[in-house]
């Protein structure tokens, strides 16, 4: 593989998936070394993503879901972040051992990301069109006016009204939903194979949330992207995701197809999350919430990290870390008593 950074295959991508497999995250660990101590943000996470597939990563804040996304993108600040173990393979290439310059060319054309807060994520002093066009100018070497034309085309694609007139406007001149559309336009500009959406709708109104989610779904189907949806909100991902991975304290605790997971969770934590969603058919009943708080990542409890909050916790849960294992066909759970949870 000589000079993979400049050669572009007919698909527009430098790398080709092997058997449709885009991403393979294997036993990923991420630590943050701070003055107060070492925070273990991710403790052995493995998952994969295929072409055209949507994977939702679900978890509370501090569960390590955003850190996972940033590790894949290669935008963690290192230091303080350290990746002591694990691999992230994109089309068979390990991103973690890739030279910086080569990896830079992965960001944007191959894998790209949308953040939660589009206002702060867009540079306030440059016009939005310019910021989208920067993708073409950096990675495609396009001239200014061609790149701006492309930006207009993308703004039209994400349904920004009067795109040609607004291409020179600044981020603060748009509404929250429109700004997130601009982020999306920027992220899909170079037709990436993988799109990561990190809480894309958390900062938005409910009606706008639905519009953004359907836009993402539409774009994903149109371009056959692999989509990773990171969220704390089960409701948001239900319609879009194919598979769900639930994270707790830097570990995956459950993996399943979306329908099966909704129908019968295989981990007490997932069950708690489902029970805490208000439902119209259970009006009048008390909403179940998970008691307690997520653990401090500098002092993750021994055994199953969820044990202090788990109603089912027994002695073994306080000593042995439950492995993520197949508990039913296609169902993975990291609970010593997953079968009990499933049957309940």
């Amino acid at each position, binding site marked *: 593989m000589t000079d993979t950074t400049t050669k572009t295959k007919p698909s527009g991508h430098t790398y080709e998936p092997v058997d449709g497999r885009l991403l393979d995250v294997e036993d990923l660990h991420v630590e943050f070394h701070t003055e107060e101590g070492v925070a273990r943000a991710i403790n052995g996470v493995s998952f994969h993503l295929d072409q055209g597939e949507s994977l939702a990563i679900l978890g509370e804040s501090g569960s390590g879901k955003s850190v996972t996304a940033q590790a894949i993108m290669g*935008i963690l600040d290192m230091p303080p972040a350290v990746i002591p173990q694990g691999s992230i393979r994109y089309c068979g290439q390990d991103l973690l051992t890739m030279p910086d310059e080569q990896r*830079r060319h992965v960001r944007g054309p191959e894998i*790209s*990301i949308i953040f939660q807060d589009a206002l702060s994520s867009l540079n*306030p*002093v440059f016009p939005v069109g310019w910021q989208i066009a920067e993708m073409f100018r*950096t990675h495609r070497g396009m001239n200014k006016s061609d790149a701006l034309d492309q930006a207009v085309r993308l703004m039209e694609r994400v349904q920004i009204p009067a795109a040609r007139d607004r291409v020179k406007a*600044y981020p*603060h001149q748009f509404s929250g939903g429109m700004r997130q559309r601009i982020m999306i336009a920027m992220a899909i500009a170079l037709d990436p194979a993988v799109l990561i959406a990190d809480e894309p709708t958390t900062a938005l109104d409910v009606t706008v949330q639905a519009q953004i989610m359907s836009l993402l779904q539409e774009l994903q189907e149109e371009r056959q992207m692999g989509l990773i949806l990171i969220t704390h909100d089960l409701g948001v991902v239900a319609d879009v995701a194919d598979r769900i991975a639930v994270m707790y304290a830097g570990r995956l605790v459950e993996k399943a197809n979306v329908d099966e997971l909704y129908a019968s969770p295989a981990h007490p934590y997932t069950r708690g999350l489902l029970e805490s969603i208000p439902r119209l058919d259970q009006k009048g009943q008390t909403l179940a919430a998970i008691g307690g708080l997520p653990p401090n990542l500098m002092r993750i409890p021994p055994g199953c990290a969820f044990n202090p909050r788990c109603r089912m916790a027994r002695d073994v849960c306080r000593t042995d870390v439950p492995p993520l294992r197949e508990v039913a066909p296609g169902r993975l759970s990291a609970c010593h008593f997953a079968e009990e949870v499933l049957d309940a």
Partner: protein
Amino acid sequence: MSKYVVRRLLQMIPVILGTMFLIFAMVFALPGDPTAGKCGERPCSEAYIAKYYEENNLNDPLPLRYVKYLGQVAQGDLGENQYEVPVAQDLEQRYQVTGKLALMAVGFEVVIGIAAGILSGMRKGRFVDNLVLVSTLVVISIPIFVIGAVGQYFLGVRLGWFPVTVSGDATVYQLLLPAMVLGSLSIAYVARLTRTNLSENLRSDYVRTATAKGLTRSRTVGLHALRNSMIPVVTFVGYDFGALLGGAIVTERIFNIQGVGGYIFRGIQTRDGVAVVGAVTALVIVYLFVNLLVDLLYGFLDPRISHD
């Protein structure tokens, strides 16, 4: 935009009038006999003094004198100094010197201050950062006249790197050391301001976006982070220009520079009210216009500020 400029200019009129009155009142309250030294060694004759007071409206109450002075200034006449040289003519020459000095100081501020700030901001907590932090703190705490005198002695007299004094034409070479001294405090402030803003912006979400876009590190830092960090720095440098003009009074005295500062200072010592009022007023007007320019520039640098 043009509406904003007009409004600002209109607001400036009462400010200029008020500031001028303030200066006028202070200068003409200067103690001492304004005719002293007018008639050689001897005291002036009664008749001369009476005539002098009459001609210079010195018998009128202060507000009336001020109005008369304004009328005179409005016709472009700043009066004559003690030696009967028109003040405007003096100032034209002196402002060239002080203007050059202040602009060179701004140049040092921008080049050295921003460069040190970038180095320090990008390597926060490292050796360079600590070096910049400590050295700026030292510069900030040592009074400028000590820096000036010591710099003049060591760099000028002992090492002979720079000229020790400045001649009448004040060449760029001669002004190098004085400009560095005049700008030293501002250089330190610019370095600290750049550092704080840059390191804050480097942690911002949009810089993370820029990295995620696959931009080179130099483009991410040099364009995205720096462009935002420069907004407060440019504003500071602009506002600082007036302070530099005022600070020139000390620097010009140390290096014996024939600029406005020295002119004002000598005017105060010799009770030459007309010269002092004219020089200070010109300085204040320059300052106010530079401030207006900076405010306009601010709106241009930061699209979130609207001047409508």
